């Protein structure tokens, strides 16, 4: 049996996690979630997701710091940043850490799904 693609969503907003769970599962992927940077790192080590959707602004360890920690462990894990608010410096900084793209929090479901599929198609080839 083919293994399900696992997507880890990291966001401190519960309503965003609930919603993205519906989106991710509607596409037949397996949904994993983390509400903090520390929890995200634990989940990555434990569950080995195929893709991480990572919020930039989070209390404690923020998205960019999580991204740095991910890159120390795994240089190739696809990471797409979720942004509701981002300065150009932060975006530039994230680009330098080899991300697979951005999903703005104002994006439609169609756009978000399209981005996820594009990244997975490239990484699972």
């Amino acid at each position, binding site marked *: 049996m083919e293994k399900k693609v696992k997507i880890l969503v990291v966001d401190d907003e519960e309503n965003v996690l609930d919603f993205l769970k*519906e989106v991710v599962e509607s596409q037949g992927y397996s949904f994993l979630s983390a509400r903090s940077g520390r929890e995200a790192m634990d989940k990555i080590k434990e569950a080995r997701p195929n893709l991480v959707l990572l919020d930039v602004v989070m209390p404690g360890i923020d998205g960019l710091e999580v991204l740095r920690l991910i890159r120390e462990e795994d240089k190739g894990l696809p990471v797409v940043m979720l942004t509701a*608010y981002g300065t150009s410096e932060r975006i530039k900084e994230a680009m330098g850490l080899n991300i697979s793209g951005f999903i703005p*929090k*104002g994006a439609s*479901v169609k756009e978000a799904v399209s981005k996820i599929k594009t990244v997975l198609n490239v990484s699972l080839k």
Partner: protein
Amino acid sequence: MVIKQYSKEELVTLTRQIVSGKLAGTITHKAKNILMPITGYVELIEGGVSSEKQKKYFEKIESSGKRLQLLLKSFLRFSRASNAGGRGWQGLEEIDLSGLIEEIVSLFEDHITISKVTLEKEIAPGAGKVCGVYGDISLIIASVLLNAIEASPQGGSIRIVGEGLSISIDDDGPGVSEETKNKIFEPFFTTKQGSLGIGLTTGLFLARGMGGDLVLEGKNKFIVSLCQKKY
């Protein structure tokens, strides 16, 4: 060069505009986080889902909508609050201190996260009703809180405590030096780049206008004291 002399009322209005302006970006951030599922669930429903899911999504849309409404209502209430502007005892009302602290803190939530500090909030069971003007008290707390956030190092923490008829806010930043202690309430005195230096002046003026006070205790702790309702 002519420097305009501001009246106290103008200083209050200017302070409110500055604080509202600084909060606007992070309120937008919070609103976008709430809006994302609202528009998203609508799109999922339009795409066709089971009636069970449809019911669940409608409930989520409704609760997010209410949350957004509350956020915008609080922000408008703060940014458009009328100022008593030190008109003494005129227009004083009974205000629940704990509710007011909760409301102001909720407006600052994302600002605190983005500033990479943490906020500990403690409302003692004895935090009671005070006599004041909502707009004035909220502006004093917001100005002092904003100062604390800007003075805190990354990873620093701020404590806001409501007890009895007072609110204290302290941070673990470097604090106010002995040399500047006497000047911090003077208008346009600032040690921060890009700051006008009117927040504490306004806070002191508004607190005293309601029969209360704003004082610095030690190097880092500001205490706003207010009065009890007069019958």
